């Protein structure tokens, strides 16, 4: 979709603004400063008159305070060629008037002030951009410190390559943290009060599989044969968290306490405005009416205590214990009227028309414990040993009573259930988790130029699941659907060093070797070998070079098993996973003496390959054949994923003269993905990658109109191109113009 109109309107607004700016520039400055204007011929070296940091004399005076402030406001145009939904999912910048950012700092000239010593407000993108944040910091050091952080995200997700393009979000997400610390600098006692909020609301689309969903706990054999339907979702979630605590010192012990409560609510609902044929429009299934309400409200209480001491300047001991208990209540109400697809030679005659009412009230609870101890022994001034021990556990238990009342009619009008089937299914699902984690490490400092570290990690996890339920009300006792227990151990060794062979060159190296465990996620690492080398070179002031290389080899050898799904000779197969990452990064940051020109450029290559054996079923009947009715060997294949991302960026800033500054930037992220490799589904090879390029040049010119006003004009361009499909490609043009108005230190420029 193109937004030419907005583009033209915004450009016109920009011109109006520009005219106003120029007019303003010709008038007197609103508040003349006693400071002399910078010498025009002064070269902008650091420390030169027109580039010096503000001093109280050239800041805005407000009684006992000085003020440094600026605000940038203007207009942005937008023109999008291609897939606007994808543009909005990635970037979502819109056209129109914007407050791009603002900054306001007020602080005492010396010592302490009245109500506050310092007061700072910063905002970025809050005046209409999709990613807005406001941060407030206010402090009177003897009495309080207040930090607030409020953010707003206009979120859009509307993609063709996810869930058949049917999972859509268009929401406004607001969240923030507000923390007040009383007596912040008091080393014996201070208090903390906090509040966090989270609000998410908007519209969306999701999908619902009607008949399989009801069949699972209900009439599985009779109603199955449906479809997936895109349904609307009204999203409304909220959470509020309140915290209070204190920290202080008694004798040699630093202690802390925090108590909090978090309440949350999800009142989202799914519904259908009209009858839908579903994703498979060739079958007879449809969903006539659908409404799903699942209000979920809950609370979580958490308590944290911690203590710390540093004995004899040799032994650092830290301990922390956290307990939390979250409980949520929910009540499902779902109403559906629809028809299944039917089967056989005449699907319509075998289809069922049905009406269901489903309710499922219940609750779930999760108490969790977390205990942690850390010890550091400064054996000598150069040699330290650290020990970290953690134990955490939680138990997740959910209960509900699933009730389904279904009336189903055959095509000939006879009812399947007379008058209706009622299933009442109490369910109790429990997940228990315990984890013990221990890390022992040491480090040795040979001097300012060389330091080593080395250590070992051990982890033990114990997980059990229990799923109790009943299929009918007539059943005497619940059955255990799945009862599992796992006990997993892993060990890791790591070590590394930091060295400065010469003053300007620092090398960081570390390596790790060991294993992890993978109860649910076998794509995660089992045996890993990781290396990381990072170089920082600063041959002269203003020039910094970074070069780093990281390798990660993760091998999950899996199990060598006899594949019984194959017909004929049953062979041993290894269900393995191999993950290889090779990442290279380099960057150069160069500022010319005096700061007149600066260059920042870099290149990063992310190289990742995953190759996993998978079990899958390409035929509806499955792959378990018999010698009498052989099926092709089809159950085992490989899944491969390739990431070959090349990221290059360069930023140039230039102070051309005291009236004109410029910025130019170019960023490109190009993933070549699988390259020439092709998937071979008949031979059970799946290959995934998303080769694409995403580039963005940007230019910006800053004209200094007068001591208080800068006029900015700039242009950004985004180009997104996928290699395998053009459906989501887009090009976006974002010209903008703005004014930055300074109060206070701007006068010293």
């Amino acid at each position, binding site marked *: 979709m193109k937004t030419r109109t907005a583009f033209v309107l915004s450009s016109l607004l920009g011109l109006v603004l520009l005219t106003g700016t120029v007019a303003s520039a010709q008038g007197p400055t609103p508040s003349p400063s006693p400071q002399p204007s910078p010498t025009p011929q002064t070269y902008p070296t650091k420390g030169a008159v027109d580039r010096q940091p503000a001093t109280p004399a050239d800041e805005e005076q407000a009684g006992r305070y000085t003020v440094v402030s600026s605000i940038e406001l203007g207009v942005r145009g937008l023109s999008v060629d291609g897939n606007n939904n994808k543009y909005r999912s990635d970037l979502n910048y819109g056209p129109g008037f914007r407050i791009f950012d603002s900054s306001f700092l007020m602080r005492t000239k010396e010592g302490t002030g009245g109500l506050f010593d310092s007061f700072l407000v910063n905002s970025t993108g809050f005046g209409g951009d999709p990613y807005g944040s406001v941060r407030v910091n206010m402090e009177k050091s003897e009495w309080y410190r207040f930090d607030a952080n409020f953010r707003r995200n206009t979120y859009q997700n509307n993609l063709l390559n996810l869930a058949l393009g049917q999972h859509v979000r268009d929401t406004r997400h607001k969240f923030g943290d507000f923390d007040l610390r009383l007596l912040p600098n008091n080393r014996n006692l201070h208090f903390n009060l906090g509040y966090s909020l989270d609000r998410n609301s908007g519209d969306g689309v999701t999908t619902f599989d009607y008949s399989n969903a009801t069949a699972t706990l209900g009439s599985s054999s009779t109603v199955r044969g449906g479809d997936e339907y895109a349904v609307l979702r009204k999203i409304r979630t909220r959470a509020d968290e309140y915290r209070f605590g204190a920290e202080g010192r008694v004798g040699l012990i630093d202690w802390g306490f925090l108590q909090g409560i978090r309440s949350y609510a999800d009142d989202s609902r799914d519904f259908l405005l009209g009858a839908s044929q579903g994703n498979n429009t060739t079958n007879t299934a449809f969903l006539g009416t659908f409404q799903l309400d699942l209000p979920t409200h809950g609370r979580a209480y958490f308590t944290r205590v911690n203590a710390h001491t540093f004995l004899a300047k040799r032994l650092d001991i830290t301990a922390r214990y956290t307990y939390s208990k979250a409980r949520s209540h929910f009540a499902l109400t779902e109403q559906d009227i629809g028809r299944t697809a039917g089967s056989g030679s005449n699907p319509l005659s075998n289809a069922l028309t049905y009406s269901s009412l489903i309710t499922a009230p219940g609750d779930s609870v999760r108490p969790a414990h977390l205990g942690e101890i850390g010890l550091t022994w400064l054996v000598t001034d150069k040699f330290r040993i650290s020990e970290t021990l953690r134990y955490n556990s939680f138990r997740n238990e959910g209960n509900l009573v699933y009730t389904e009342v279904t009336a189903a009619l055959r095509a000939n009008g006879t009812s399947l259930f007379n008058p209706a089937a009622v299933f009442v299914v109490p369910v109790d699902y429990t997940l228990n988790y315990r984890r013990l984690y221990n890390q022992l490490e040491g480090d040795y400092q040979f001097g300012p130029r060389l330091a080593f570290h080395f250590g070992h990690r051990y982890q033990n996890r114990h997980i059990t699941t229990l799923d109790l339920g009943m299929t009918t009300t007539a059943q005497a006792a619940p059955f255990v659907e799945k009862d599992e227990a796992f006990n997993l151990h892993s060990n890791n060794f790591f070590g590394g060093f930091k060295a400065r062979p010469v003053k300007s060159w620092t090398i960081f190296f570390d390596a790790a070797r060991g294993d992890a465990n993978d109860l649910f996620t076998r794509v995660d690492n089992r045996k890993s070998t990781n290396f990381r080398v990072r170089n920082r070179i600063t041959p002269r002031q203003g020039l910094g070079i970074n070069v780093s290389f990281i390798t990660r080899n993760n091998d999950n050898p899996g199990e060598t098993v006899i594949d019984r799904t194959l017909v004929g000779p049953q062979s041993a197969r290894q269900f393995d996973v191999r993950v290889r990452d090779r990442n290279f990064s380099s960057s150069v940051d160069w500022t010319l003496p005096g700061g007149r020109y600066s260059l920042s450029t870099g290149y990063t290559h992310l190289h990742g390959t995953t190759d996993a054996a998978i079990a899958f079923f390409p035929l509806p009947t499955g792959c378990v054949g018999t010698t009498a009715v052989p099926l092709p060997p089809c159950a085992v294949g490989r899944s491969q994923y390739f990431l070959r991302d090349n990221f290059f960026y360069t930023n140039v800033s230039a102070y051309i003269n005291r009236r004109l500054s410029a910025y130019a930037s170019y960023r490109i992220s190009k993933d070549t993905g699988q390259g020439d490799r092709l998937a071979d589904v008949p031979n059970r090879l799946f290959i995934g990658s998303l080769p694409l390029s995403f580039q963005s040049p940007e230019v910006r010119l800053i004209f200094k109109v007068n001591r208080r006003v800068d006029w900015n004009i700039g242009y950004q361009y985004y180009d997104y191109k996928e290699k395998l499909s053009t459906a989501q490609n887009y090009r976006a043009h974002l010209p903008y113009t703005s004014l930055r108005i300074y109060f206070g*230190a701007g006068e010293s420029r």
Partner: protein
Amino acid sequence: MNRLKVFKWAFVWAWIVGLVLLFSTGPLFRSNAAGDKKHAPPTPAAAQPTANPADYVGAESCRNCHEDQFNNFAHTPHAKLANEASWQGKIVGCEACHGAGKPHIDAVNAAIDAGQDPTEIKEQDLKIRILKHESAKQVSETCLTCHSGREEHNNYRRGEHWRNDVGCTDCHSAHAPDPAPPKAQSHTFISENTLQKPDSSVLHMLKGNETQMCLRCHAEQKAQFNMPFHHKVQEGLVKCSDCHNPHGGFELKQTRLANFSASDAACVKCHNDKAGPFTYEHGPVSVEGCSSCHTPHGANNPKLLRRNNVFQLCIECHTNAHAIAGTGDDGASNTPSFHNLTQSRYQNCTTCHAMIHGSNAHPFFFR
């Protein structure tokens, strides 16, 4: 013996040999007394029992020669400790970190009296502690003397930055740094704090904008933050320290995972509809964490997923070798046989399993 065992044994022996050396040759570590003194773990002068109280002359004395540093320092919380009752009797100000000032002033005055340019005095003759020549750990120990009591800082000595010898003053300036000179910067990314545009990094005495400082070293993450899908960190919506504690923590990667929740607290703090508890938890979400399926910093794939094809992501876990072998089915179950993965219907797992993070009403996450 496989390579891992060799590696394990090498580490075990290295520890044993190291400990034997430590206890049997203790003098080896103490032999370089002068060197040790030079690099002794610095503590604020207030904590040095051997320091002569008369040698502490106060920050105003420093101002005479170091006015720029003094002016910057005067705005910092460090400068205000002198007014705090709980800090009365403690050495605060410049001398808390640099040591007693009188020997330094005497040395400089003596040099001036001798006709020497004070800027040309050799550093070792200045009789003052110059932290820039010390190791990151030594400098950090100085800061920790006061800052380690708070929960946020308590694990610094066991954190990743410590381990890799990144010290407090790599990111912070105890004096508050000079504001950066103004320069033209990006329009959509948060820019460095400057003279005219201070941000909260100024109050926290950071040397620069937090995000930009982190990305200077963490270049891999910088590339990820420039992919089409990314957390809007460079845009200023979130900060690195929202999810990571740069001062160390009990968790790997210093993530803020375990503040009060059993699962990924850093993630569900904003994505609160994923927090649960759910009646039916999706195992990996509870046990392995969000990063099992998502790359948190950025990705080319939708929803920050680790695969562009969702079914590949799912089936790489839902391949149960035991079930194939007929020896059990513990862990992630195989997909049922009617899932014909050559059809797009079954390649888009979440069209049916829409509530994949956890469900209160359906064991297979349908609703």
